[in-house]
């Protein structure tokens, strides 16, 4: 089944975007009134979002116009690499976390997109692969970063306990198994919770976008459900893969903790 895209489109003017900045002014006023010191961050966020989204808008337009599969792969590759760099900053407690993150994001994106195309959910065209790929990589990045951040903290906190199990003849994989469960849970729980509450507490972005673009609510709901399920698969692959690849980095080949606990 190939889902229909929005049956009509809306035209958004620069003036409308500028008008929306009024809400940013509210945020600045709130920050200033309470001396929260967020004015600079809000300013940077607004400018960066403007530049980044405008740039990616041109890139997507180019890719759609060219209708080139190679350009789609190139764009998704760049997103995976940037995603791994960004996630690495959150996984500070994990030695050499970049490569596990890169591998996990690449596998999550390739496996998820490959599966949705193979199942006939989406056509293998830029119009589907670019936006779905972007969502998959973004969510996978967050899940992998949260999972590795938790794993790094737990290994540090429980280093004595881990070394005690190594002393009983456990392999490095066996020694961190209890921590892997918790890390995987941390990486996935946010999306699982938001999937549970979707439609009740908030409307997810894709559905809102389609409704604004004039799509039939039934189509909007169905597409949103597909994306939520796709994302659940993607974050589980990313978190599990990142943990599996990264957990070895805490140990030497002789099953020794690289950063031994202080005696």
């Amino acid at each position: 089944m190939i889902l229909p895209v929005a049956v009509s489109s809306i035209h958004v003017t620069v003036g409308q975007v500028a008008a929306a900045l009024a809400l940013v002014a509210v945020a600045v006023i709130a920050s200033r009134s309470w001396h929260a010191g967020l004015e600079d961050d809000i300013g940077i966020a607004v400018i960066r979002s403007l530049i980044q989204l405008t740039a990616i808008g041109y890139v997507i337009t180019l890719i759609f116009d060219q209708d080139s599969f190679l350009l789609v792969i190139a764009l998704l590759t760049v997103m995976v690499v940037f995603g791994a760099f960004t996630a690495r900053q959150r996984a500070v407690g994990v030695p050499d976390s970049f490569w596990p993150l890169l591998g996990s994001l690449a596998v999550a994106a390739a496996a998820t997109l490959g599966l949705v195309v193979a199942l006939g959910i989406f056509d293998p065209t830029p119009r589907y692969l670019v936006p779905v790929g972007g969502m998959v990589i973004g969510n996978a990045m967050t899940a992998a970063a949260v999972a590795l951040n938790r794993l790094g903290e737990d290994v540090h906190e429980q280093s004595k306990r881990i070394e005690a199990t190594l002393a009983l003849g456990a392999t490095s994989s066996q020694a961190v198994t209890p921590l892997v469960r918790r890390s995987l849970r941390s990486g996935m729980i946010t999306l699982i919770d938001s999937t549970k509450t979707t439609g009740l507490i908030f409307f997810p972005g894709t559905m809102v976008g389609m409704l604004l673009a004039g799509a039939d609510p039934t189509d909007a709901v169905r597409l949103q459900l597909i994306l939520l399920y796709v994302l659940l698969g993607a974050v589980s692959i990313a978190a599990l893969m990142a943990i599996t690849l990264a957990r070895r980095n805490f140990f030497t080949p002789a099953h020794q903790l690289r950063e031994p606990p202080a005696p």
Partner: protein
Amino acid sequence: MLFELEDVTYSRAGQVVLRDVSVRLPVGASSLLGPSGSGKSTLLRLLNRLADPDSGRVVYEGRDVRDYDPLALRREVSLVPQLPALIEGTVHDNVAYGPRLAGRSFNARSCLELAGLAPAFEERDASKLSVGEQQRVMLARALALDPRVLLLDEPTSALDRAARDAVEGTLRGLRARTAISLVIVTHDIAQAARLADYVVRIDSGRVVAQGAASELLDEIPEPELATAEDAT
């Protein structure tokens, strides 16, 4: 000779913890004696390859420890670490952990009995035991691997005097009933005198003396021995 360390140097986070250490530990009961932070616990971890030295050699029964499979070595030379290091679950879960990984049979009750714990402890929640009981569970857990050497890292440092005396009694009983050699890390001179035949004194990452306990500890002035006794 059970262990020989030849010119061993070990650093952590850029700090030299052990410098040019050469030590010989005979079969029987030995003690690594020194103040807190002197490097004695680190030395203990080198004996079963929980860490490797930056330079020098650690030899166990005539072979470099790096020639052994590290997992097999740790089952034969078993470390009893400082608390807290128990696995979540019952006392039985803790005692069974090592043998199950190795695919070996074991007798939990006999291990508990050797460690001075009654069979009734087997199904108790390990986290709800007293510190002294937890220390004995860690001892039983190591014994379940049927080791040839036990490495004991400050086995009584967290215990009151009565519990300490009981654990020391258990260790003496272990020596009398089994052929297991002991390497005991302690900061307590009097404890080294009570438990060890051979003593290595370590200070600031260097070996300052080693020899038979009866000779080496005789050289320590009485007030120092008395101070150590009072501190425990």
